[in-house]
């Protein structure tokens, strides 16, 4: 496989959501080094992202009683705002000129996986999304502090039920296991201790506003991971994130989502040392330059949202303009991935989990629906005989296999059918 095409393809698909028409060709001309620098350099202003209008997500207040006339407008507003929020984020992913910010926000959403299904209010999820975006390439300790104070996360993990009298271990355990250290890097006694240190948080569910109720707070020192301290939320975040295990864990998670969910992380992976200062952008930059990004062995399956957004970019579609948003969410749901609704606190699965015959079926139906809504201008601008070769550049595919070329050639006179096969090809579903 052509090394430059492979690396360029990976840079565009993994550190963003794939190329728009022409972008892959441009990147090949620029060369790998320049492409890497561009992919990693977030511009001060993103004109594409700026075109996405922020939805009005409001505090919907307490849920009215059942069977009252107030429940109907409440339920309508809830559904409408939740849908608007999903569309807003999908649009940002699809139309941003620079992909890294949304890609990292998406990564962190799967990391601090919180679902609106328990919250049942959009505003706290919207606030959390902004917190993740603001910190997505910043300092991991700062992010962890912000997340301990995040209403959606606190509510999701029963933080508001964690009190001096009755500690609830849900948040404390996950904070160590899934968010900062990794499983097995603490004891059950540490879980008890950290849970005591996290008591007293109160969440206004409809707004996500977090306060601390001093009466419910256990202010005694606790012994956590060998250190006896009276922690605050902030000092706890600093303490956890400073541990070596935290650098190890974050590099493992980055490896899993950006390099390979199937192969083990080699010791040579340079991200852990680059993360010494807990600067996320340094870790991401190291990852984009690591040898693994050039190694054919490390293929990665695009998750349904990643596949959908890259298809939108290729077809120049804006998610919120698709008919209809409800149908779009339904397709994503069938494929098993709707933003703001991860299946559990562990986030979405990866790899072969997205490659069942059921998803193959849904993907074909989804792609057919998308293609119908695109004018396919880019494909029509190529002569049928050019389409097989040029479509690899259009989609940012490193190389079509012989098998796929045969299928595409067979459909080269029919742009819609051609696009369908290309988008559902193994080479496009998998980031080679």
């Amino acid at each position, binding site marked *: 496989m052509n090394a430059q095409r492979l690396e360029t393809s990976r840079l565009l698909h993994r550190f963003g959501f794939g190329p728009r028409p022409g972008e892959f060709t441009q990147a090949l001309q620029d060369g790998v080094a320049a492409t890497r620098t561009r992919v990693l350099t977030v511009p001060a202003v993103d004109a594409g992202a700026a075109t996405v209008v922020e939805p009005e997500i409001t505090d919907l207040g*307490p*849920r009215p*009683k*059942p*069977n009252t006339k107030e*429940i*109907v407008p409440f*339920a309508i507003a809830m559904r409408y705002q939740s849908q608007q929020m999903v569309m807003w984020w999908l649009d940002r992913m699809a139309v941003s000129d620079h992909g890294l910010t949304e890609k990292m926000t998406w990564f962190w959403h799967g990391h601090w996986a919180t*679902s609106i*299904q*328990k919250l049942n209010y959009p505003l706290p999820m919207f606030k959390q999304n902004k917190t993740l975006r603001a910190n997505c390439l910043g300092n991991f300790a700062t992010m962890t502090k912000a997340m301990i104070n995040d209403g959606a996360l606190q509510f999701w993990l*029963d933080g508001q039920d964690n009190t001096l009298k009755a500690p609830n271990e849900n948040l404390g355990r*996950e904070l160590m*296991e*899934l968010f900062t250290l990794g*499983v097995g890097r603490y004891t059950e006694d540490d879980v008890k201790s950290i849970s005591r240190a996290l008591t007293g948080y109160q969440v206004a569910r409809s707004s996500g506003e977090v306060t601390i109720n001093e009466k419910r707070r256990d202010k005694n020192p606790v012994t956590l991971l060998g250190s006896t301290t009276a922690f605050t939320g902030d000092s706890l975040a600093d303490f956890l994130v400073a541990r070596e295990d935290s650098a190890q864990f974050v590099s493992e998670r980055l490896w899993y989502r950006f390099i390979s969910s*199937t192969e083990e992380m080699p010791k040579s992976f340079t991200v852990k040392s680059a993360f010494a200062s807990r600067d996320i952008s340094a870790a991401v930059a190291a990852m984009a330059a690591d040898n693994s990004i050039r190694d*054919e*062995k490390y*293929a*990665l*399956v695009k998750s349904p949202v990643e596949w959908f957004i890259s298809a939108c970019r290729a077809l120049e579609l804006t998610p919120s303009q698709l008919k209809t948003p409800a149908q779009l969410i339904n397709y994503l*749901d069938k494929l*098993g991935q709707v933003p703001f*609704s991860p*299946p*559990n*606190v*562990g986030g979405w*699965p990866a*790899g*072969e*989990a997205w*490659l*069942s*015959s*059921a*998803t*193959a*079926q*849904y993907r*074909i*139906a989804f792609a057919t629906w998308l293609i119908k809504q695109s004018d396919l201008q880019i494909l029509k601008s190529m002569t049928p005989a050019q389409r097989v070769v040029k479509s690899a550049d259009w989609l940012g595919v490193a190389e079509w*296999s*012989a*098998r*796929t070329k*045969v*299928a595409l050639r*067979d*459909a080269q006179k029919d742009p819609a*059918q051609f696009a*369908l*096969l290309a988008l*559902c*090809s*193994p*080479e496009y579903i*998998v980031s*080679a």
Partner: protein
Amino acid sequence: MDTVTRRKFLKLTTGAVAVGAAAPLLSIDEIAQAAIDRPLPAGTPILVVVTLYGGNDGLNTVVPYTDPLYYSSRPEISYKADQVLPLDAELALNPAMKGLKGLWDQKKVAIVRGVGYPDPDRSHFSSMAKWQTASPAKHINTGWLGRWIDTQSEDPMLAISLGSVLPPLLAGAKRSGSALPLGGLVIPKGALAAQCAQLSKVSKKDSKLMAAAATSMRNLFNVSGNVQPVLKAPAPVDPDLPTTNGGNAGGDSNLAQQLDVVSKLIAAGSPTKVWSVSLGGFDTHANEANAQAELLGVVSDSLTRFMGQLKSTTRSNDVTIMIYSEFGRRVVGNGSQGTDHGTSGPMFVIGNSVKGGFYGEQPSLKNLYKNDLAVTTDFRDVYATVIEKVLKSPVEPTLGKWSGRINFL
């Protein structure tokens, strides 16, 4: 709603995460092929577990319609005595459950009253985890049927859950049940089918994941001549149903769809002893337009239809259906959010071999336990009975030493 609620629940443990992510996904043709190659021996008992996600309001399912306290406790949401379907002088079924009432009259329905576990937990997630793991005191990562699967010889067809995500119920320590996503989509035909078939050829140069992507598409088309009849066949027809949509045919719903697939595959002889289906949406805090009655109607209609479909197979006497929800709801209808998750509720066990009638004590509305219905029957009594009588297996490997049994089989 259904998958959302199930996924919502699957948040509960990281153990379930690992298992859920690794659950084998079956395709319907794989099961159909197995049904042809090695059908379940005739007469083998089959368990169908129906999970109602969200906490079904037991008091409005099996209604104490002659108890004045029922009416005074929840004046706004109680059913009038002349609306309900009386089962005896004290209890009646929800008006939407006409189909189940018919099965009750045929003595095919056991209603176990006041079922729950000690120290009821009002979180959907925790309470459903307790029910599915059958471990109310200590959190564990295996489901009770998953532990039963562990005791059986390995077979991906042994226990199948409908839907793309596997519930922890079927997660064992060594093995777990399989998930069968509901299809219902049209497989490409004609030129496109040929081109897709071309795309699905595994190439020598493919990476492991690319080969898997190709294979996933190939499986889609991999419906052999042998399997096709099973897939294409309509669901078995209930001989008692009128040919047009009869009163008890019910509207289409996801549960009905799931049970259609189950009845087809049971009829075809799938080597499956446990089926898991589910319906979500019972979290009726927001009881918009009698959501519960609508859902109970779906449960009643789809199960009645399912029982009818089984009649035209040779296995109608082999199937036992068990229905549960993670908790009942509060006695007093106060309507404010978050406070109306309750404690115990009724369980239904249905089948031709079931001894119909009431089991367990009806929780008193007068002597409430911390303002909630008391738990009068431990769910492990029901599970133990099912393990012994339906799955013909010893109880201990699954539930430990548990002595309670209920005589409904």
